């Protein structure tokens, strides 16, 4: 039994363990891992996500149980202080000694803190570990809480990590300032112009950038109050995060005379061995080819080589050409750089496309003979990165006119790339997990896998940074197609049909309920994907409410309320068009007070009451219904609101009565279930105060009628609705809306909103106009009839529920007790309350 000791349990140290356990003869080795941090290895690349959710578990690479299961001894909170090469032992801070046959140093790096006078003051932090973040966060809470105005915080360093830190500082509520010594942002990856494009973009997001600044002093008594760059050049900041590069953690090498680089780092050969062949160094502590590689992908490769050298057949060597290409999203902006981003003229030519109106920058560097792509930069849109990266890595042929790579081919209108299958098999598709195109295609061609999920499970591709996912999806689909297999959009493992096919099957065969549909057209017992999808189909065929087939409803629909973070619910009564009487407002206020609910006005011009427990929902709704309210369907994939401006009723610019029309439309379609939520808007003039063009359907009053817009949405990828028809009278608007909505409901996939549905609709908006306005399919009348049928069947599902004792049974936390959930904890929040934060 040989002993391997791994010093360091960061991402690369963990990768060593992961690759170790997959070796066949790993059983003949005993492995002990030391980590100085209190927790097992976590994903430092996505550290800034910790600010969003403060969920350390979510970042974990593997749990303690994983190490136990694989017989790996993991000792955290313990640092190795010495290596005794003669006796082949390491000793710890607690002066415990451990023997090793092989020693693997994966100690990583520490943040470089420049020696600036005053850098030791309170309020100065680094950005590397979860503990660093927690300390920063605690400090931020303390000083922001006290202040009435914007508090400034700076980040020292405008590199990749510095910009991540700036985003985190902004998310904490500070006014962020990035201070960079160089004359540009991300100096290692970007040229000056790309950096400028990135700078303008992030400045527009509220991040202040200070370039070419050498900080000569941190101001303040014992707490930071500012930074000084020159005699009259300073900024006031109350916190500083230092992110000015990394220094290898090579102090252990000094304790035992391993060969080191002049500027630090432990020198290794291409087997990852240090000057002592039984001691290996991998990751950011290793100096390979006179370089420290501060990216995770080369670190993972090094871990693989070291495992193969110690446990495997010792054939693997670290390649001498290390790809430093990266693609990332910084503060929501795509940035990528691959190959040789800066092109000295003696090596090749550059073609540069810059569009400041869209904050776009694309640069490609081409060899003198115009045959090879040598590298490039993308800012603002990196969707072509995977393709460029593959062309560069594998020396693939490029179009004769290289500019087509970034400008698209002229005339044809097609893409200048061929199929993903043209990439050579050796091409690395997922660099985090070193998965090649050959690995993926082989699994499918040899029949080991026949879907994306299996390919991901087998290769781990896409599980790192996720950047290669689109390409992996394309590869899987194209390979399946090349074998003549149909790549079919299916609902889930229980139904091998898409939503539209199931809609037709259920309608034509007059299927009554979910179980019958599953017995007729599916297999197995269903799941959380097909149940709500079919619930929506039944609702749009028969207008049945969720009270009819309770067991297949998503939790929100099952309890006719939106489940919130702590398992309580929120209540939204319908306030059509945003118009409400003072009496009704008072009722809402009284109900909220009586049940101690947190109240907030929503984006859809209604009022949301939060914090209701299950058993309180019917009581609350009874009071609301008695006062004349009805369900607002805020919990359903259904019509939410039709937002309105006050229109000609009051406004001196108004052309038509937008409130009146919004109420009419909202009342018409209320309760309508659809593939995803539906929102509308009606504006009384072209000033567009109701934001109608951000909705699934929007109306804007013009001289002579309404302009109708369709298929817009806010959300993660905002889309403006497209002009569909002009100067319509009320009746025609309603007719077109009936047809348009019904056509969408019939044909869209589950959870696909109108905007992405239109994107995928063959023929696009012109085709949609033909179907709806010109009735090219001859179904217009049928669509209208169907819609009218549904509208006539509307009833308020809350009223239905509280009048039926059988339906009421479900609004109770326990079956066998009248107690309520004792796990609920609320904390005060500005004069109201909120659920206790998640740990």
């Amino acid at each position, binding site marked *: 039994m040989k002993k391997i000791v791994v010093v360091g349990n960061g991402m690369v140290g963990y990768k060593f363990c992961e690759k170790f356990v997959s070796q066949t003869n790993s059983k003949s080795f005993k492995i002990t891992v030391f980590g100085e941090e209190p927790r097992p290895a976590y994903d430092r690349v996505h550290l800034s996500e910790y600010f969003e959710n403060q969920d350390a578990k979510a970042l974990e690479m593997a749990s303690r149980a994983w190490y136990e299961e694989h017989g790996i001894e993991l000792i955290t909170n313990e640092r190795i202080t010495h290596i005794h090469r003669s006796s082949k032992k390491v000793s710890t801070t607690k002066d415990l000694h451990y023997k090793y046959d092989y020693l693997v140093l994966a100690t990583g790096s520490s943040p470089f803190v420049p020696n600036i006078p005053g850098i030791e003051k309170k309020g100065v932090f680094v950005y590397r570990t979860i503990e660093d973040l927690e300390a920063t966060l605690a400090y931020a809470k303390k000083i922001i809480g006290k202040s009435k105005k914007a508090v400034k915080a700076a980040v020292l360093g405008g590199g990749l990590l510095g910009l991540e830190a700036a985003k985190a500082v902004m998310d904490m509520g500070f006014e962020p300032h990035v201070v960079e010594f160089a004359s540009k942002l991300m100096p290692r990856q970007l040229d000056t112009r790309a950096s400028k494009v990135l700078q303008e973009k992030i400045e527009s997001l509220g991040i202040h950038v200070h370039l070419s600044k050498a900080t000569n002093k941190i101001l303040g008594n014992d707490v930071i109050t500012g930074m000084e760059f020159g005699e009259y050049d300073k900024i006031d900041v109350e916190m500083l995060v230092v992110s000015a590069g990394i220094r290898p953690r090579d102090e252990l090498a000094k304790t035992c005379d391993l060969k080191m680089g002049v500027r630090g780092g432990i020198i290794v050969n291409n087997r990852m061995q240090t000057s002592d062949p039984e001691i290996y160094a991998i990751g950011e502590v290793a100096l390979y080819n006179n370089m420290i590689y501060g990216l995770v992908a080369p670190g993972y490769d090094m871990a693989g080589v070291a495992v193969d050298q110690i446990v495997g057949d010792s054939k693997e060597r670290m390649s001498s050409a290390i790809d430093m290409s990266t693609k990332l999203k910084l503060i929501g902006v795509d940035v990528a750089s691959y190959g040789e981003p800066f092109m000295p003229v003696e090596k090749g030519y550059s073609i540069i496309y810059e569009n400041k109106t869209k904050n776009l920058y694309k640069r490609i560097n081409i060899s003198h003979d115009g045959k090879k792509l040598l590298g490039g930069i993308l800012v603002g849109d990196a969707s072509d990165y995977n393709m460029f990266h593959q062309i560069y890595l594998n020396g693939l042929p490029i179009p004769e006119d290289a500019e087509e790579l970034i400008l698209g081919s002229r005339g044809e209108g097609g893409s200048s790339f061929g199929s993903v299958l043209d990439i050579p098999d050796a091409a690395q598709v997922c660099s985090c997990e070193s998965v090649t195109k050959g690995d993926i295609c082989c699994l499918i061609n040899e029949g080991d896998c026949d879907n994306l999920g299996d390919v991901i499970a087998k290769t781990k591709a896409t599980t790192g940074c996720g950047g290669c996912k689109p390409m992996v999806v394309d590869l899987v689909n194209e390979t399946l197609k090349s074998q003549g297999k149909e790549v079919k959009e299916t609902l889930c*493992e*229980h139904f091998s049909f898409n939503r539209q096919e199931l809609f037709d099957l259920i309608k034509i065969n007059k299927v009554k309920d979910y179980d019958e549909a599953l017995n007729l057209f599916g297999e197995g017992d269903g*799941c959380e994907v097909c149940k709500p999808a079919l619930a929506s189909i039944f609702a749009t065929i028969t207008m049945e409410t969720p009270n009819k087939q309770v*067991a297949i409803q*998503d939790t929100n629909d*099952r309890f006719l309320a939106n489940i919130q973070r702590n*398992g309580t619910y929120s209540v939204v009564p319908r306030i059509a068009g945003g118009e409400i009487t003072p009496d009704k407002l008072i009722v809402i206020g009284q109900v909220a007070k009586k049940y101690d609910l947190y109240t907030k006005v929503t984006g859809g011009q209604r009022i949301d009451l939060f914090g209701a427990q299950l058993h309180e929902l019917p009581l609350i709704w009874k009071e609301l219904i008695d006062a004349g309210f009805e369900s607002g369907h805020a919990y359903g994939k259904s019509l939410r609101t039709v937002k309105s401006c006050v229109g000609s009723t009051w406004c001196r610019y108004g052309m038509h009565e937008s409130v009146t029309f919004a109420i009419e439309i909202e009342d018409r379609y209320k309760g309508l279930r659809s593939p995803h939520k539906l929102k509308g808007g009606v504006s009384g003039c072209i000033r567009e105060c109701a934001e109608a063009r951000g909705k699934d359907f929007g109306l804007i009053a013009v001289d002579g009628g309404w302009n109708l817009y369709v298929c817009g949405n806010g959300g993660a990828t905002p889309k403006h609705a497209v002009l569909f028809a002009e100067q319509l009278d009320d009746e025609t608007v309603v007719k077109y809306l009936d047809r348009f909505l019904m056509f969408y409901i019939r044909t869209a996939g589950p959870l696909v909103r109108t905007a992405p549905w239109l994107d995928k609709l063959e023929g696009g908006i012109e085709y949609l106009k033909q179907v709806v306005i010109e009735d090219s399919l001859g179904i217009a009348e049928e669509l209208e009839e169907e819609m009218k049928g549904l509208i006539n069947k509307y009833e308020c599902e809350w009223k239905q529920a509280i009048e039926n004792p059988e339906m009421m049974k479900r609004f109770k936390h326990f*079956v066998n007790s009248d107690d309520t959930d004792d796990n609920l904890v609320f904390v005060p929040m500005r004069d109201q309350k909120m659920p206790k934060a998640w740990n």
Partner: protein
Amino acid sequence: MQNIIEQYKSVSEVNVTTWFEVGEVSDFPKNSGACIKYKTKQIAVYNFARKNSWYACQNLCPHKMEMVLSLGMIGDKDGVAKVACPMHKKNFSLKDGSNLAGDDLKIAVYPVKIKDGNVYIGFED
């Protein structure tokens, strides 16, 4: 927070010391879940009528420590009965409590017995 979860440990039928009666069969909705209380525990009970089986597990989702699993939709993955947490759709096996996405968050499961129209859950305490 940790101590809430520590009281949930899977029980296998052979080790049951208490069969606790939680109600009649008709108190539990078909093909979905409901929640019962036993001492300080909250247990989710599922009448999986399609499979003609009953399952029980902790009501606490181990991901965010909220009492919500009884509200989740049930179904199967490759034939294994499962529940999807309503919060973030994490899937747990109702057979053994394992996490079907392969990460290590697991849940405790408890045996269910039906006798003379009554429902019993098995505990060791």
